[in-house]
């Protein structure tokens, strides 16, 4: 048996023993499903969600490629492929959703000191600390580099004052990674630093923002004379913009996956929805105007999926294409939801009450939520600017 075959055997055995029944195919539908984000204040409707996270975290398999000294799985690319196949095979639920995994850990690995990596990455991997992102401010949206939350040097620590907005789940997070102004006299891009702040520190408060979907995934976060130890600075002082841009690429790559539709037959598939609400004749959507629009959209989505695949095959020239994927992923996702809402007719705008099915009501809210996709992580217009200037080399004014 080769090493990889042995790894597959061991993985199968381990999953068989350690992946709880409600975390895989054939789970009892009556058991409530958790969206597991971890953290100090995590609560679980299903105790097995917690067990699954602990076991996967202990293995380091929530970040399987990260080396073991930082608590990762220490697996090779081939091993990760096998792990993913085996997880897919048993229909394992994702043990942990985490901004720490998607965004912070990759930049810590690149820019953090040895101490910072050893302190923070294992807790991200185990889901012990839940992170949020402090980038945007009321006056700094697309023009992020104009941010004004300031961090003053007061000897042993920085004194942080200001306000962040659109901080996802700040009210539930334990720590925040934030961009702060440390060089007020420098040109705007050269006076920004990347700082880690414990949300439990005195002076940090949060306030949820209710969205048009009725949900509140975002908050405003206020810093009122918050003292932050200097060892929480990542990278050089005033060199935060480079890290910020790098992190945005990770974020954009992550958001662009939204552009890939749920599979055929699932509740959120535009074809099934159209067939349900508009009728079906010989396997075709009965209304030709909708059918044509849906086919056009499906073709675009297919071509987009092939482009993601091609980028992977090319070895991922991430920086040039991340903006394109962010732009198209989010625009397609919006378009798909618009089509689902339109094809649902009046049910597509159901809000509440017993007269409508949960699927309809959830779709309405999901559709409204997609409107934020092309705003968060850099608007579509910002992505177009990035492509024009960095990819096409068009001149600035």
């Amino acid at each position: 048996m080769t090493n990889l075959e042995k790894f597959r055997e061991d993985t199968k055995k381990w999953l068989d023993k350690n992946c709880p029944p409600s975390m895989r195919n054939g789970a009892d539908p009556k058991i409530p499903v958790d969206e597991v984000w971890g953290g100090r204040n995590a609560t679980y409707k299903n105790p097995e969600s917690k067990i699954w996270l602990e076991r996967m975290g202990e293995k380091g398999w929530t970040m399987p490629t990260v080396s073991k000294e930082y608590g990762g799985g220490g697996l090779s690319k081939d091993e990760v492929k096998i792990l993913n196949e085996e997880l897919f095979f048993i229909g394992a639920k994702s043990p942990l959703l985490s901004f720490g995994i998607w965004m912070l850990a990759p930049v810590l690995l690149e820019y953090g000191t040895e101490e910072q990596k050893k302190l923070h990455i294992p807790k991200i991997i185990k889901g012990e600390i839940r992170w949020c992102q402090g980038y945007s401010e009321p006056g700094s949206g697309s023009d992020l580099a104009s941010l004004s939350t300031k961090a003053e040097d007061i000897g042993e620590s920085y004194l942080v004052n200001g306000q962040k907005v659109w901080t996802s789940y700040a009210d539930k997070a334990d720590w925040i990674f934030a961009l702060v102004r440390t060089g007020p006299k420098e040109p705007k891009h050269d006076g920004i630093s990347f700082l880690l702040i414990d949300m439990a520190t005195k002076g940090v408060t949060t306030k949820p923002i209710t969205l048009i979907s009725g949900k509140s995934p975002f908050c405003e976060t206020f810093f009122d004379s918050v003292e932050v130890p200097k060892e929480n600075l990542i990278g050089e002082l005033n060199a935060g913009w480079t890290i910020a841009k790098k992190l945005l690429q990770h974020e954009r790559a992550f958001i662009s996956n939204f552009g890939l539709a749920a599979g055929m037959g699932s509740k959120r598939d535009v074809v099934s929805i159209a067939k349900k609400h508009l009728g079906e004749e010989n396997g075709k959507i009965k209304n030709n105007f909708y059918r044509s629009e849906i086919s056009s959209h499906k073709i675009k989505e297919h071509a987009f999926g092939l482009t993601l695949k091609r980028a992977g095959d090319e070895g991922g020239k991430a920086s040039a294409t991340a903006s394109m994927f962010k732009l198209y992923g989010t625009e397609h996702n919006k378009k798909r939801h618009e089509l689902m809402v339109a094809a649902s007719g009046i049910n597509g705008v159901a809000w509440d009450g017993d007269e409508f099915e949960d699927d309809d009501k959830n779709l309405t809210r999901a559709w409204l939520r997609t409107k934020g996709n092309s705003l968060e992580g850099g608007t579509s217009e910002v992505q177009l600017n990035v492509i024009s200037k960095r990819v096409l080399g068009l001149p600035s004014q």
Partner: protein
Amino acid sequence: MKLILTEEEQFLKDTAKSFAEERSPITHFRSLRDMSDPMLWDKNIWNEMSKLGWPGIMIPEEFGGSNFGLSGICVVLQECAKTLTPSPLFASGVLGAYAINNYGTKEQKEKYLPLIANGELTTSVAVDESSHHNPYNTVLIAKKSSDEYILSGKKNFVIDGTSSDLLIVLARTSGEKGDSTGLTLFLVDPTNEGIDRIKLEMADSRNYANIIFDNVKISSKNILGDIEAGGEAIDDVLDIGRIAMSAEMLGNSEAAFETTLDYLKQRKQFGVLIGSFQALQHRAAEMFCEIELTKSSVIAAMRAADERSNDVQRLSSLAKTVAGETLHLVSNEAIQMHGGIGVTDEYDIGFFLKRARVAEQIFGSAKFHTERYANLSGF
């Protein structure tokens, strides 16, 4: 299925690029048009292409080709399309070579493939009979009479129809207009009695003909593939053709976009380069993205064809739709962004617009293929 070119394909592409730029720049196409050349492609250029082995790329080695597949010829067509190089490579090297190699008898292959491979013989596929592509609407009739067939009817818009040495004709041997069954393919010598080829003058100044068949006698030895199985065969041949045409259209889009981008970086108005205007930048960025999607669609379709995947039909319709819509967008935007000179005959960019609209129609428009994609996807 990897969506990247192999080293050999990249080499072939580079060769084709240098050839097109050096031997057949757009000025070459312009001079053919200006001379009202009856063939609208140049025999000398075709001979040079043949020496490079291009007409035989899809033909097996035993018949004098290089067996390099659809992917091989697609990268050549893409590069040649960048300089609008007219040649029989599409109708002969793709359609004729593929149809005969896949559906021909041993005798037919031995007779025709070596001649196609060395460029001596060129072919045309005669499918459509009206203004919109639809092979099943064939009414050109082939009536059996002892061991021959008598063909009567008219084919429209036959690519390279005025100059080709062999016609592959889709005819109805039974059934009615609209039926996918009852169709048969014939290999027809265009010098046969009863054939009249009428040259078409199209906006893209390329070689097309309407062909009238007036009681043309064809021996049953010249049936291509099985009798009454022409519907399936032509669908297969057309899918290969659609993918190849998509590769050409991708080349057209890339060239028109690059020319436009250069112009945005040169032209000044209000004292600044017009490429600094955000109104134009965002539109340029959108075109870039559409071209990237087209690249992926074309490469996925050509790979699927070479690997004989069962998703070829759907990917062919995908590629033709995406390539068609992208070229439509890019050709329009190219004119608009060039401003006044964009609508002058003196400037080359208009050629891309004229070529675009014709290519969009070849073997089915984006509308045709959007509908076909839905049918094939089960909705």
